């Protein structure tokens, strides 16, 4: 058991390390001079030279790599080429914005999806089932940025219920303090992207739950529960649904990293200053210290999610024994 987890941890660490090494060299192949915004060509050559030294760009590539790894080990991600501020500061607030948008809607979607999926799967062959399965497949097939655009057209423009984008009204929190996150204005801005994302994320857990509930029909333990004289409702909630939750519980942690990465398009439409939007902007500016840190962060989230998923699996299903 412990040997298995030790090997898994070691593998994950190795994966992350290989990834960050590959990324380091890959990003340095991006075209364009990334330092053009911080190191203005209009500066004296001497001043340019000093700035370049500050960013460590005067050294050969392999030396830059060792400095990068050394700094990483103390969680120093370097300076952004675009703003000159520390990358950790740049990314921190952006990550928080994405997490506040993505995680609540993901959890809501999984909770709703599993309940509706269970009820619908239990009444298989009904008209509601056919319609819901069709609707959620169609919803899953639509690009989420298009759904976002439609929601803005209808709810923000037509009905004037929600603001068109951004995280708070412009000028309301000029110093962007943490108080902003506790304001009604923030919630008002969050509402529409949250709803769209929840609706979109709902499809997968719904379809998954439905098919795993279908798989329990005719299983011995379900028949036994019925024979005990339990009501149909308790057979579903106490027995069938509990067992069917397993695949859902294990996919949820794995999707966390992907959901953060996948928020790019929704953040673009709603001008939501999150990590996804930052990544795309940073790639455009060849601001590789920022891109590297963002990629690493998402990779850590995904790898951690996979580990949690594996752990939950062994915890929830005692039949699984790791070699």
């Amino acid at each position, binding site marked *: 058991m412990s040997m298995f987890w030790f090997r898994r941890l070691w593998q994950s660490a190795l994966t992350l390390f290989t990834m960050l090494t590959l990324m380091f060299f890959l990003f340095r192949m991006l075209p364009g001079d990334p330092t053009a915004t911080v190191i203005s060509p209009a500066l004296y050559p001497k001043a340019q030279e000093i700035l370049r030294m500050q960013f460590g760009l005067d050294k050969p590539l392999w030396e830059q790599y060792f400095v990068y790894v050394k700094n990483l080990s103390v969680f120093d991600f370097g300076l952004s080429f675009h703003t000159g501020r520390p990358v950790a500061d740049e990314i921190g607030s952006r990550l928080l914005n994405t997490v506040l948008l993505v995680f609540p809607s993901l959890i809501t979607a999984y909770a709703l999806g599993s309940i509706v999926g269970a009820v619908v799967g239990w009444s298989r062959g009904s008209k509601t089932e056919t319609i819901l399965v069709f609707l959620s497949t169609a919803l899953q*097939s639509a690009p989420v940025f298009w759904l976002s655009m439609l929601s803005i057209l209808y709810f923000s423009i037509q009905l004037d219920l929600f603001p068109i984008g951004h995280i708070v009204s412009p000028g309301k929190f000029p110093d962007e303090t943490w108080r902003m996150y506790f304001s009604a204005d923030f919630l008002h801005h969050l509402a529409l992207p949250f709803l769209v994302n929840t609706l979109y994320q709902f499809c997968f857990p719904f379809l998954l739950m439905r098919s795993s509930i279908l798989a329990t029909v005719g299983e011995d333990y379900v028949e036994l529960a019925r024979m005990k004289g339990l009501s149909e409702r308790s057979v579903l909630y106490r027995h069938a649904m509990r067992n069917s939750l397993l695949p859902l519980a294990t996919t949820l942690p794995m999707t966390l990293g992907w959901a953060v990465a996948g928020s790019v398009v929704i953040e673009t439409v709603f001008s939501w200053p999150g990590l996804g939007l930052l990544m795309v902007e940073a790639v455009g500016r060849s601001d590789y210290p920022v891109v590297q840190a963002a990629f690493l962060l998402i990779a850590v989230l995904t790898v951690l999610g996979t580990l949690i998923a594996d752990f939950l699996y062994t915890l929830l299903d005692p039949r699984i024994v790791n070699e």
Partner: protein
Amino acid sequence: MNIFKSFIQITWKSTSGRISLIIFGFCLVLAVVGPHIAPYGPNERCYDAAGKLLRLASPSWDHWLGTTVLGRDILSQMLWGAQTAMLVGLLTALGTVVIGLNFGLIAGYFGGRIDAILMRITDILLGLPFLPFIIVLLSLTDRNIWTIILAMMFVMWRSTARIVRAEVMSLRQRQFIAAARTTGANDTDILYREIAPNIMPLAVTSITFALAWAIITEASIGFLGFGDPDVVSWGSILYDAYASQMMYRAPWWVFPPGIAIMILVTSVYFIGRAYEEVINPRLQERM
């Protein structure tokens, strides 16, 4: 061709499969003939009788789906875009599955170090943020539909490889493989003559999922403004509508591309599901 024929036959058996195949076939025909029947060029500016540029004209007899802020005919753009979506989608899906199938076969069959290395590569690819990484790859080269296809293939094969690998590992233990080995078949024979045919149903379902995913991804790349600047795609139409900040005045600009993507991808999902149900009788029983 044999696989293709049996695929159509199998999918045709279910009602939803039949309807989806017809819809998909219709889209395929539109993609092929679209540019020839399109009334205007994709970037052609349209003028009214008085010679004035037709900005944001609402749908009419001359312009069924209206025009954009630059006076371009949206119906024509949609027809050219159908070709892009279909070409990029089909080639990406095919490439993804061919790469994933081979890597999955090799990793699952040989195991050991080869398997470990290939699986670590898929781990890395799974850990990378999907869309941002594709955008990084596109920034390294020229942006055209071929590099978009390559970049998507480069990332997407990982899922197919993992599914195929798991299946191969269980097939490897079966009797018929041992039987083939005693007759003196070498590894290549066993892999491609004995195991691969048994993986085909799985590969076909993987193609449908890859196709659905590729169409949506291509649209997302276009929407983020990283598409081929010389080719109209459904994603780039939506990008223009969004970036012009005029979509509020012209809803007819926003609806067609999204609806088209939704119909096409839904039909692909249902084709995959219909095929799976027939191939896997246990699923059918439950339906």
